[in-house]
């Protein structure tokens, strides 16, 4: 390994327990400098606990937290070179916008004129240049959000931690902020660690996503990798919408489900091993019933604006979710087609490590 690719943040075997309840189970992760990372998972999965451990608000029960190669487990929060954007923003209500942004600089005894310039720069960065004199209660939720970001960024941290910062905003504003945050991160080159339960947010902004559930990182990788190659039922279900159908691996590149054999792109499993098949709704195309690889009966459909969401059932009783630009007729049979590479095969209870090993071995062949 090259020396200069040392991760800026590294967690090794970090656990956190409250009494008998284990919130984090042996978390290992590495963050490289200058990338946008996302911790994604349902509420209570431990993602915010990881953030708080890195920020220094919570101590890890065991394991090490490294910052720039140094163990920082015992370093108090006020001495860590990371800053946090809080879910509720935590802007000080007794100070105005500029005073909030200047708070950290004043503590660090930065000269007065430098504080003024840096505060102005930070506010300009989040497009609030003229808002310095406003009271916190006088600005909107979206503006408060920006002030919170400016207050953290003005400290020039090496890592910025963001705890579900967009969850309190309305849908339109949230979309805009996604672009802005991504843009800000790329311009400043600071490592962002973003916590969210919103998979769309995670897919849109991240260089790398850590999908978490019940105190464990289930899968990590680029948004495309995680979307296309979900490692198990949970990830497939949590990221995007999926049809997950039980099946059997006949041999390499051949899989059987709903009583038929299909060509597929997966290999490296035992013959006749029971597996789960993932087919994304947008990968399914509707054709006439006699031309389909599968025949299903339409149960209901909803118009979603840019597509129709169709729910159909096959003869085995499996539910099929189809996204189609054309409407179908309820109660009528339709044919479904898909390409071999649209089929994604998941082994039951396979961990990320063994999946990686299998893929590597099969790619080496």
């Amino acid at each position, binding site marked *: 390994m090259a020396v200069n690719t040392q991760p800026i943040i590294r967690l090794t075997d970090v656990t956190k327990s409250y009494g008998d309840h284990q919130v984090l189970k042996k978390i290992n992760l590495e963050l490289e400098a200058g990338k946008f990372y996302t911790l994604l998972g349902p509420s209570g999965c431990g993602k915010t606990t990881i953030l708080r451990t890195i920020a220094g608000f919570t101590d890890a029960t065991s394991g090490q937290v490294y910052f720039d190669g140094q163990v920082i487990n015992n370093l108090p*929060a006020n001495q860590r070179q990371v800053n946090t954007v809080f879910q509720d923003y935590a802007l000080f209500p*007794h100070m105005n916008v500029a005073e909030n942004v200047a708070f950290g600089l004043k503590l660090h005894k930065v000269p007065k004129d430098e504080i003024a310039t840096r505060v102005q720069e930070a506010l300009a960065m989040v497009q609030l240049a003229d808002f310095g004199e406003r009271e916190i209660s006088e600005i909107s939720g979206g503006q408060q959000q920006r002030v919170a970001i400016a207050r953290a960024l003005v400290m020039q941290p090496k890592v910025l931690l963001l705890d579900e910062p967009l969850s309190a905003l309305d849908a339109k504003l949230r979309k805009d902020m996604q672009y802005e945050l991504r843009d800000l991160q790329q311009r400043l080159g600071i490592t962002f660690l973003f916590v969210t339960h919103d998979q769309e947010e995670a897919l849109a902004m991240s260089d790398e996503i850590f999908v978490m559930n019940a105190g464990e990182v289930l899968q990590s990788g680029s948004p495309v990798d995680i979307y296309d190659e979900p490692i198990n039922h949970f990830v497939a279900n949590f990221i995007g919408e999926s049809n997950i159908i039980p099946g059997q691996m006949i041999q390499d590149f051949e899989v059987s489900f709903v009583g038929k054999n299909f060509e597929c792109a997966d290999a490296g499993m035992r013959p006749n091993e029971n597996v789960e098949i993932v087919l994304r709704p947008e990968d399914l195309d509707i054709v006439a019933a006699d031309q389909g690889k599968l025949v299903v009966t339409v149960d209901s459909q909803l118009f979603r604006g840019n597509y129709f969401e169709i729910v159909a059932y096959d003869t085995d009783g499996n539910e099929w979710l189809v996204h189609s630009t054309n409407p179908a007729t309820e109660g009528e049979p339709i044919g479904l087609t898909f390409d071999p590479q649209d089929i994604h095969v998941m082994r039951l209870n396979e961990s990320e490590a063994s999946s990686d090993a299998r893929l590597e071995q099969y790619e080496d062949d």
Partner: protein
Amino acid sequence: MQQKQRLSRSTAYFIPYMLWIVLFVIAPVLLLIYQSFFSINGQFTFANYQTYFSSSTYLMMTLNSVWYAFLITLATLLISYPTAYLLNETKHPQLWLLLIIMPTWINLLLKAYAFIGIFSQAGIANQFLSFIGIGPKQILFTNFSFIFVAAYIQIPFMVLPIYNSISELNTSYVNASRDLGATNWQTFSRVLFPLTLPGVRAGIQAVFIPSLSLFMLTRLIGGNKVITLGTAIEEHFLTTMNWGMGSTIGVVLIIAMVIIMWLTNGGKRRTRRGLK
């Protein structure tokens, strides 16, 4: 029509409270003001006010009252703020709070008599002082014992509002402050304390104003060495029977209270607007 009826009914609910306010607050205050303009012989006069503001005795008394009320409030605040803060950190704050409030259920006079026992020559306090070799000392009827007991009695009224404002405070303010590099002391002085000021102000009002007019404790515990406006009023009404002069001092006290309220509410605007 129906709305009007509902309106008149909700007004009706206010009648008992309004009656109470008129009979026991507004009327007595008006009577007091009216009476303060009459001499001991029942003649209309401004002499009472003239006497009050030209007599060094009364002005000293006023200064004394304010000074001792200030000392009592300061002592109470210094004890109550850390108490309220620690209370918020404990596992069962409601239980501890109950224990702090409990003494207020006991009559003030009983508590005063209990302290006479504790502070007397043969009391527990002096037994302890003798035991460690510095006693016995004169504790009762000193300024110290007066402030001590007054502060003891007022503490619950200071702890409660401060505790409420601390417990309502969002913990992420503290985390945000530490995150931005503040030490524990800086977090306290720049974030925690300013944000809990409304509670501190409420506590100061609840303690300072009653302390201005304390009279029973000055006699029982302070041994009449400290003469406050409260003592003077008592003297005029019960001993010298100069109700006019007593009323004048009462009016001055009321004005002092209004000033205190106005002062402690003065800086409140910004914090309150920010918190809500």
